[in-house]
């Protein structure tokens, strides 16, 4: 059963993620409590809004510990865009806000000389040993990124004024800086591979 629970990180849209997962046969629910995050076969941390406000929302719902616990035990978890950034320690976008601290990295803004936000399709180079990411084009919409590969993760990369981390994976945890739900057939294949881990959970 492809049962997926979405963490409500903000007021902006999760409709695209829900639509993409639904097209792949998933039943999608919204997390109402930490218990939902603990027990669901698959959890999605979607990418909307700003780092600080998304983290506030997670804290006020009391979901941070449950999300961290899932990731540390490599259970099927998908983090998208800002959702991936939330795994880090903090972000230049929201000084003073603390992330989930699964990663030691700080999220930084793209440098000068490139279009910011990075808005559009860019090439993804899969990391060696990647289970989820294949070579191809993904849709990005971000001004901030992680530019250093964290230890213990398989990292895929993309270039926008220098290499940055396009995706991270560890066990059944997949974090994407791009939007797989908006990345056409390539993105759908990636989501389907992740949903297979949900099905097996």
């Amino acid at each position, binding site marked *: 059963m492809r049962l997926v629970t979405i963490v409500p990180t903000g007021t*902006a849209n999760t409709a695209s993620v829900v639509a993409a997962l639904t*097209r792949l046969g998933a039943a999608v629910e919204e997390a109402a409590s930490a218990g939902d995050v603990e027990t669901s076969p698959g959890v999605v941390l979607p990418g909307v809004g700003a780092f600080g406000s998304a983290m506030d929302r997670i804290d006020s719902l009391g979901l941070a510990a449950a999300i961290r616990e899932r990731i540390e035990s490599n259970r099927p978890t998908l983090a998208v865009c800002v959702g991936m950034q939330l795994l880090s320690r903090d972000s230049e976008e929201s000084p003073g806000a603390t992330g989930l601290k699964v990663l030691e990295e700080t999220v930084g803004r793209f440098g000068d000389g490139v279009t910011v936000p990075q*808005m*559009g399709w860019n090439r993804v180079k899969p990391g060696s040993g990647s289970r989820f990411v294949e070579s191809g084009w993904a849709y990005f919409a971000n001004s901030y990124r992680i530019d250093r590969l964290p230890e213990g993760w398989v990292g895929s990369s993309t270039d926008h004024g220098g290499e940055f981390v396009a995706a991270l994976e560890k066990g059944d945890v997949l974090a994407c800086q791009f939007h797989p739900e908006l990345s056409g057939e390539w993105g759908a294949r990636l989501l389907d591979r992740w949903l297979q881990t949900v099905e097996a959970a």
Partner: protein
Amino acid sequence: MTLASRVIPCLDIKDGRVVKGVRFQGLRDAGDPVECAGLYERQGADEIVLLDVSATPEGRGHALETVRAVRSELSIPLSVGGGVKSPDDAGRLLEAGADKVGVNTAAVSRPGLIGEIAERFGTQCTVLAVDAAAGEAGWEVVVESGKTRTGLDVVEWCRKAVAIGAGEILLTSWDRDGTRSGYDLDLIASVSSVVTVPVIASGGADRPGHLVAAIEAGASAALIASILHDGDTTVGELKAALREAGIVVRP
């Protein structure tokens, strides 16, 4: 750097149907939005823009249904504009399945709207749509489908909107819209040289060469409508021409 230049079909939506006119007037039916969006996605479109050109509240209701219907089928980004007056209007479109929301007339009356939407939903969700009419010195912002001149300088307005929170500019030449006489390249160059956010060129595309020129003038993306709806070309043909001209596009 490999960020690809985008080709973006635009669907003007009225009462649940795709329409197209010349300089925003004389609208004619151009098909079903879900079918058009799906067809263009299969042709290789990088994104779809829906512009709600309904004039009535009933029409606006249809637009939300259209966004929902298109979203459920579409697996590429969907940007929606038309009649957005408040962050709540933007929220309803995002909830229905838009990935980005465009503001136009209401932002001219109240620029703070751009910042409010950016703060609540993020800069990457906030698109400034500008309709530009050529004047003696530069371009003037026009609103209400070109019926009203505002006295605002287009380049200044874009610079200000980005400072407040716009993450992308959909730059339409009112003079060229639907005329198939080519994009206004000076307009594209003038705006893209003063902002760091992506600029989408719009208004006047007829031949692949027009898209090449728009990208070379500084646009990150080219919007197309009439030439697709009339079946004269396909997104695939246009992207092949861009690639041949040495421009990076998504295969």
